[in-house]
Every structure is written in C-alpha cells, then in structure tokens.
C-alpha cells in the first residue's frame, strides 16, 4: 500500500501534476530514499523509452495515395444533390488543382507497385517479432568479431535431409545437389563437438579463407543517407564523403569512378545517378532524373544499367547509361533491379508482363529488351536479383513464408533453391567479385547488419552491425514521394 502511494506520487511528479510545494517534498524524499529514487529512474526510463519502442516496433506507415481516390469513390453515391459535384471531374479538378491529378497518377503507380508485390500485406502477419529474443551465442560478443557459422553442431544430423530439418539456418548448396554423399553419416557417428556434416570436406572443418574487396552499404543516419564502406572481414569501416546518396554500386573491376550512387537531396550536388571515385573528389552526374535508381555496372565495360520512375505514371522502367554520362539508352521495358550477366550484354530484372498477371524474374539483353523478354522464374515475391560475375547463377531474395530468405537459381530459372532459413530476414544479396561469396543484409541475431555467406560450404559470418543508422528513410519527401519505401528497396554492393 505504501509503495502504491509512492508510485502515485512519482507518477504525479513525472506528469507535472504536483504543486510546487508537493514537488519540493517529493524531491526531498527522493534524496533520502534510494529505493524511491530507483523507482523514479525506472519510471523515467519507461516514460522516455515507450514512445521510441512502440514507434520502432510498429513502424511508421505511409498513407497510400490511392486511398484518397477510393474514399472519394466511396462517398460519391450519396443522395444529397450537392455532392453530385464529385461526379463532375472538371469541377473537382478546378476545386482541387493539381492535388487531384497527382492522386490519380499516384493511384496508377500504386497499382503497379502493389501488383508487383501482392503478398506484401501478408508479410505483416507472421509470428516473428523483430525484437525477439536473441538466440544462441547472443548479443554480447556479436558486434566486433561475430562467431563464424559453419555446418550444424548437432551430432544427430545423420543425413543432409535430417540436417535440413534442424535448427540450422544455412542450406549449403552441397546439401541439395549431392543428397547422398558419404561424409554425412560418418560425421553423425562421431560425436565431435562441431562435425561439418554438410561441408564438402569430410576431414576437418577448415574455414574458407575470408574474401577480399570492399562492401558498400547505405544507411540513413536521421538526417540523410550516406554510403559506408567496409572490408568483408569487418575491418576498415569508413564513410564515403558524398552526402545524401544511397543504392551504391561498386564496379566489379575498375577503380576510377567505380562508385555509382543514387543521389537524393544533396543541396549542392546533382540529383540523379552519380558516378564518382570513392573519395568523391570528382562526382559526375550521368543521368538527369532524381527518380533514377538501382544502378548495376557491366562487368565488361564502363556502362550501367538502372531503373527509374521518371515517367509521369511512376512505373519502374529500365535504362542503360555510360559511366561518363555520354549516352543513355531507353531499354523500353518495365522492370526493377536489373543485373548484368558476366557478358555485360544479357541481364535479369524483376517485373511483370503487361497485364500484371505474371510476375517474377525476367531475362533479356540490352539490344533486344523491347522485342523479347523471357520469364525465367515466376514468383511475385522474388526481388533484388544479382547475377554472378563469373557464372550462370543468380542469387535473389524471396518471401514465401513471411520472412525474406536468399535463393539461388540458374540464369534460366532452373534449380532454384533456398540458401538461408530461419525466422530472420535475409535480403539484398550481392556476389563477391570472384563469385564465391554472397553479401547480404539481415536482422539475424537480433540486429540489422551486413553478413557474408559462402554458399558452397555454408560458412557464414556477420561483417558489421548497423550502428550508424537504418536502411529505411523516414516518411517524407523525397524518399516516399512515389510510394512507400522499405529496406528491401535499397541495395548494397561488393567491389574489388
């Protein structure tokens, strides 16, 4: 009863509901009573943290622009004579000015966006929690040198099939392609602490040497986007000097002007796709629209392929441009996230046919994109494809079960299989320049960050946890001007 009274006083104190005299008394009492002081600290902690916790956990959704139109339609058949003016478009346009036009256009764009990711809403109804308890070897040692994950640690994984049902969240390629290799039962018999049951090497769990190069990823730091660069072993974290840019693409081979970025809102710089040297001493605007996005370099020449919402209907379309801005080509094809083949000629992208009925990953080339394109993988929830720089393999992200996972398929769509599993979200995959590793973004182990995965062995480790910001920008122009923006609309890159 006494504590209840104290609680109420503390609450009233926090809510500024006390008179000056009462406040003074409470403050005096707090000085003498450490338990009460701790209660105040706890209450303040709650008061201070509840808002951020709820906002972070529930998110800050944007009102879909098409709703205005729907609502207008809904109230239209009212019997009241005066409201028949809703049905006279000219009058409405007069009254509302450009707002109505924009809303109608945005409606069109939204149909496209929703058409491409129809399962989006179902994503929000899984049983996972973002702030869910951290499993396994947890938070404490996670940040600087995270543990390297290899094959399953449970001795009972006697066969690859059993292993697939275990709590393991990597599916090495070998497990699917060589289902009856002899090493697995051997590993099952020995009760070694960490038998590499799924590793291609039966003898010792020799970890694959870490790859080289530089991984680039964007983060929104509260004010603006910036590109962060890090070595795949987690060292040499640094920030690219250009401000207000995201969606980086590092050239797989060259060093000069090797970084292409989307520029959002640099007040002094160009607002378009920009190529630059990493030191950003000579940024060069190579296109003309701020809607130009998702660049990918040709592995062969100084050429980029990209997607843009620059047309007034805000549909995503594909374009190509030279890295010095000298020539731009309209590929005359709707789609997103294009990725060049090793030949720098063919490419794969995410999109739908004209009717919006068949969606997934499509393949064509820069000369014939207008005439023909082939649906290699029908899956409306396949996104962010990346074509290996050295082979005919494509890695992409998809969401069949309510969380994003990485998938690998051949460039004709055959042999598609899942690379990662578990309740975590894995996405935005990119190949290493040598085509042996895949970098991706994930919220596994309770924190968002960049991870790398060696698909042949299943070896996986965290490169960095995002501490300087988030992938998703706030709901405001220019970021959400053409529709909601999510973390999976970003991209990361891996260069030499």
């Amino acid at each position, binding site marked *: 009863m006494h504590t209840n009274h104290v609680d109420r006083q503390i609450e009233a104190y926090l809510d500024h509901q006390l008179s000056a005299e009462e406040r003074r008394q409470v403050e005096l009492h707090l000085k003498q009573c450490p338990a009460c002081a701790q209660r105040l600290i706890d209450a303040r902690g709650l008061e201070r943290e509840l808002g951020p*916790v709820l906002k972070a956990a529930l998110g800050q959704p944007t009102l879909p622009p098409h709703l*205005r139109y729907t609502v207008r339609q809904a109230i239209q058949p009212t019997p009241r004579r005066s409201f028949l003016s809703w049905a006279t478009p000219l009058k409405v346009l007069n009254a509302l000015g450009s707002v109505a036009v924009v809303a109608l256009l945005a409606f069109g764009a939204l149909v496209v966006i929703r058409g491409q990711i129809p399962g989006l809403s179902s994503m929000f109804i899984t049983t996972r929690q973002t702030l869910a308890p951290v499993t396994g070897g947890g938070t404490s040692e996670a940040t600087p040198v995270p543990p390297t994950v290899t094959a399953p640690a449970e001795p009972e994984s006697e066969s690859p099939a059993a292993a697939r049902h275990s709590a393991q969240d990597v599916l090495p390629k070998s497990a699917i392609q060589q289902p009856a290799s002899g090493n697995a039962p051997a590993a099952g018999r020995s009760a070694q602490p960490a038998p590499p049951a799924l590793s291609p090497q039966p003898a010792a769990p020799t970890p694959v040497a870490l790859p080289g190069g530089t991984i680039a990823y964007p983060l929104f730091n509260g004010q603006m986007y910036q590109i962060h660069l890090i070595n795949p072993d987690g060292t040499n974290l640094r920030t690219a000097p250009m401000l207000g840019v995201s969606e980086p693409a590092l050239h797989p081979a060259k060093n000069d002007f090797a970084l292409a970025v989307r520029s959002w809102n640099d007040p002094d710089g160009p607002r378009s796709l920009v190529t630059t040297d990493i030191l950003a001493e000579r940024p060069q605007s190579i296109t003309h629209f701020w809607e130009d996005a998702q660049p990918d370099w040709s592995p062969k020449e100084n050429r980029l392929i990209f997607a843009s919402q620059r047309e007034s209907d805000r549909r995503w379309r594909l374009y190509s441009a030279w890295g010095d801005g000298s020539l731009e080509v309209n590929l005359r094809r709707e789609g997103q996230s294009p990725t060049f083949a090793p030949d720098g000629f063919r490419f794969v992208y995410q999109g739908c046919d004209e009717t919006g009925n068949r969606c997934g990953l499509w393949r064509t080339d820069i000369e014939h994109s207008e005439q023909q394109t082939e649906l290699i993988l029908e899956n409306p929830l396949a996104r962010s494809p990346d074509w290996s720089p050295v082979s005919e393999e494509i890695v992409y992200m998809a969401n069949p079960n309510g969380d994003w996972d990485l998938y690998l398929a051949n460039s004709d769509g055959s042999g598609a299989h899942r690379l990662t599993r578990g309740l975590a979200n894995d996405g935005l995959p990119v190949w290493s320049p040598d085509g042996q590793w895949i970098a991706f973004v994930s919220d596994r182990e309770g924190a968002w960050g960049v991870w790398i995965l060696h698909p042949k062995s299943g070896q996986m480790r965290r490169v960095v946890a995002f501490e300087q910001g988030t992938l998703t920008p706030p709901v405001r122009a220019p970021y959400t001007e053409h529709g909601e923006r999510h973390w999976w609309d970003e991209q990361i890159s891996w260069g030499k």
Partner: protein
Amino acid sequence: MMQTKTSPEQDVTDPVLVERWQNGDAAAFDALYTRHAQTIYRLGWAMLQQTQAAEDVVQETFMRAHKARHRFDPDRASFGTWLYQIALNYCRSHLRKKRLVTMPWLRPSGEPPELPDPMLGPEGHALRGEYRRLLWEAVQKLSNPLKEVITLHYYMELPAVEIAAMLDCPEGTIYSRLHNARRRLAETLSAQGVSAPEIFEAQNAH
C-alpha cells in the same frame, strides 16, 4: 513539388472546413482528408497491424464521418477527436468480429529499431537495446485496454485530455490507466531484474 503550392484551404481552420463540408463543398472534404487521413491510417495500422485493414479503417472512418457529418458538434469535440473516435470504434468492432482477443501485435515493421544517440557510447547503446527489447516484450503482455491507451499516448502522441475526449471518460481515468500500464510494465521488468539503465539519468540531467 507535389504539394508545395499553397492551396486556399491551408489557412482555414477545421471548424470552418467542416461547415463548408456540411454545406456540400467537396474541396473542403478533400482538405480535411489531407489533414487527417495519415493520422487515421497510423491509428488503424497500430491497432490492426495489417496494411489492408489499416486502409479499411481510413475508408470506413471517412465514409462514416461523411454520413454523419451533420451530427458533428464542434462544441463537444474537435474534428480530429471525432474522427479518432469513429476510427477507434471501427477498429474495436473489427477486432471483435475477427474474435481477436488481443491486438495482433505480432509482426513489427522489420526495420532496424533505433537511431544512434551521440550521447550514448557503444555500451550505452547495447544497454538501451536490451532494455528496449524487454520493454517491448512486456508491452505485448498488457491487456487490450492498457495496450490501447499506451498506443494512443506513446505511439500516436495524443495528450491524455484528447484521449479522454475520444473515449468519452474523465481525464483522470486516462491518467490512471496510463499509470496502471506503466506499473504493470515496471513490475514485469523488475520481475526479470531489469531496471532502467542509469545512462538515461545522465541524459535527463540536461
């Protein structure tokens, strides 16, 4: 570019717009929609946690408001509060219809949870992250009415007096519900041996 042009409706107050709307001015309705739809959408989203359901909340709220526009009394509540009331009632009946015992707070948005705070070191960030994770778990254990009031106050950032107007109860009731919710949370946390990191105090001192 989209809406930088000042429309004539921008300087007009809600009551004036409502009156014009009641007299059949379509542009006034549109201006009211522009002002309030986003907030209603957020409320629907927080309560129901599904994109489609949140869209339905907006549509239903404005439809019901439109039907009942002549019954709106500016002396009893602000237009925003009135809309909130309609939206909240719709959310509640939606939950009832779906026989959902609790608000389906299952799937957070999947975003990285927080921005860095220059005042906190790496250790402070870790402490805060852990505290926030446990706090979120504790929030999910609250009963529906408490969750509701917490959402309205901390997520929607509505002052107690407005929540009281919305729920049609005395302001003191809201304070005591908020108090109850915070006490439950504090109890859950302290049962786990968690207390607010002292780092918060250092910040509060400023």
